[in-house]
């Protein structure tokens, strides 16, 4: 605690006790000085809930003295008139001190308990992290080390094809490492609140196809079906973030389905109020109306889907579906969710009626009036 805030604690403790005493003073005859003692005791207890130990003890002592001096007859002396009042004063003093000390200790215990609990959850989290991470990182590292050892030690014995296979294993391992690093960096970016979306006009067609073209190799054993609504207007979003979101969703769809499965990507725009869609909107209509559109992008597959009881958890960090063999750190969907939410959107996992997983991205956006001057 800084010395300044400590001084503030003392200041406020004294101020509050003085104010309560001053407030009670005019009413002493009416409420009786015993009630004043109770009120002061209450004040000290309340102070103890907020402030640290010593300011509270000061407040307790001060209030006892004030009570004695101003409220116990004979007034304006520290002398106490009768035995009963003397006993009361001593009791008051002890109780005020105890209230202060107990409250303070109680808070301390709560704090410790809270810290302990927090530490336990984070330990649990880190254990999960280390389990999946060490596996995810060590596997490619062992591949690289193993392959280089073989290449260096058996220079003559290896056939040309063997060498090529080994080097391409190294390549794949390095790419995998790089991918995991990207995931970890993105996760820490999300957690540090470092993501500032760079909203620019995006062509949804360009976004989806650019992502797919980059994933061509990965998608070579899967079938894709793309349905993008005609004449989709440009939307305001962060191209790079959206690309990462789509990449993660499509990667998941590929990783969790057998070869030759179908991955479907749909994109369309809905107007929030329902009735008319944007196509019928005439140009030049009121501009205030523009934020009512939502871009929806769906990524679905026809694999086994997500069990209903796990639906809510799939976006949690390090979460992996039970009994999945495929590698992964469980960060892909966590990042997807974070990136969509950073842009003011939402992402949901839904139950697809005819099996398979369905993810829906909803991104509220402004759209341009459809006119751009040609020529």
């Amino acid at each position, binding site marked *: 605690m800084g010395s300044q805030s400590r001084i503030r604690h003392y200041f406020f403790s004294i101020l509050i006790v003085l104010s309560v005493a001053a407030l009670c003073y005019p009413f002493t005859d009416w409420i009786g000085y015993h009630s004043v003692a109770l009120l002061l005791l209450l004040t000290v207890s309340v102070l103890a809930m907020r402030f640290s130990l010593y300011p509270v003890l000061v407040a307790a002592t001060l209030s006892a003295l004030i009570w004695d001096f101003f409220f116990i007859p004979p007034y304006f002396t520290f002398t106490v008139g009768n035995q009963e009042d003397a006993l009361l004063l001593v009791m008051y003093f002890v109780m005020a001190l105890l209230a202060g000390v107990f409250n303070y200790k109680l808070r301390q215990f709560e704090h410790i308990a809270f810290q302990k609990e927090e530490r336990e959850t984070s330990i649990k989290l880190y254990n999960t992290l280390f389990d999946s991470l060490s596996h995810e990182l060590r596997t490619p590292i062992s591949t690289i080390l193993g392959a280089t050892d073989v290449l260096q030690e058996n220079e003559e014995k290896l056939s040309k094809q063997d060498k090529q296979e080994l080097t391409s294993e190294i390549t794949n391992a390095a790419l995998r490492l790089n991918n995991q690093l990207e995931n970890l960096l993105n996760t820490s970016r999300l957690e540090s609140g470092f993501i500032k979306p760079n909203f620019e*006009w995006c062509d949804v067609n360009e976004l989806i196809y650019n992502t797919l073209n980059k994933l061509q190799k990965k998608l070579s054993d899967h079938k894709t079906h793309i349905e993008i609504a005609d004449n989709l207007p440009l939307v305001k979003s962060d191209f790079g973030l959206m690309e990462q979101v789509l990449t993660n969703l499509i990667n998941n769809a590929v990783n969790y389905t057998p070869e030759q499965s179908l991955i479907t990507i749909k994109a369309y725009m809905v107007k929030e109020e329902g009735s008319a869609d944007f196509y019928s909107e005439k140009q030049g209509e009121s501009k205030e109306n523009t934020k009512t559109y939502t871009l929806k992008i769906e990524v679905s597959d026809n694999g086994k889907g997500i069990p209903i009881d796990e639906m809510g958890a799939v976006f949690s960090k390090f979460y992996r579906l039970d009994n999945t063999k495929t590698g992964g750190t469980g960060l892909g969907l966590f990042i997807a969710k974070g990136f969509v939410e950073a842009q003011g959107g939402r992402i949901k996992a839904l139950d697809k009626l005819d099996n398979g997983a369905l993810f829906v991205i909803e991104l509220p956006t402004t759209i341009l009036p459809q006119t751009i001057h040609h020529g």
Partner: protein
Amino acid sequence: MDKESILIIDDEGAIRKLLQITLQANGYKVLQAATAKEGELFAAMHQPDLILLDLGLPDDDGQNLLKILRGWFQKPIIILSARHSETEIIKALDSGANDYLVKPFRTGELMARIRSAFRFTQTPNIEPILNIKNLTIDFTARTVKKNNEIVKLTTTEYALLMLLVKNEGKVLTHAFILREIWGPGYIEHSEYPRVFVGQLRKKIEDNPNQPTMILTESGVGYRFVGS
């Protein structure tokens, strides 16, 4: 022809070694610098034909060095960056870098970028008629043909295509395209490049969704690839 010389400015010994082997294997002469200070000095002393500049240098920000170099160095500068940030890349391109590669990059990609950067500097005069894939551009008649059929382009689309073609292989940022085609007054209209690139792709690409000529550089801009 003399071997072209390339100056590598990168503080990572392993990367310099790798680049040196790759570049020498491809017939380039290699110079190396490990710091910004050394890089600036070598660039002035040896007058290399191209500079590979890493942005994360120990003694100075690579962006700074880029600006200093661009004060007098006219030949291509290709940025190597470990940072994946689009703003960083756009900043470097706007300060005059010809191209950028994000680490880890593949050597094949690097060689392609280097060749394209050299091609760009070696052909300042564009032929009156240019053939790119199945496109034929006639600069004097201001016509564009695709598979020998005239493609009808608006004035803006034509201007945009010319800008892309003249900067073949180079990444053009959205802001640069806006400034060049529509002028500085239109800098707010960031939607224009997207819309017109979309239209142009529909007219000149075989499959506008899998463009082979006007490529998208995510969050940065566009690159025209002619070969």
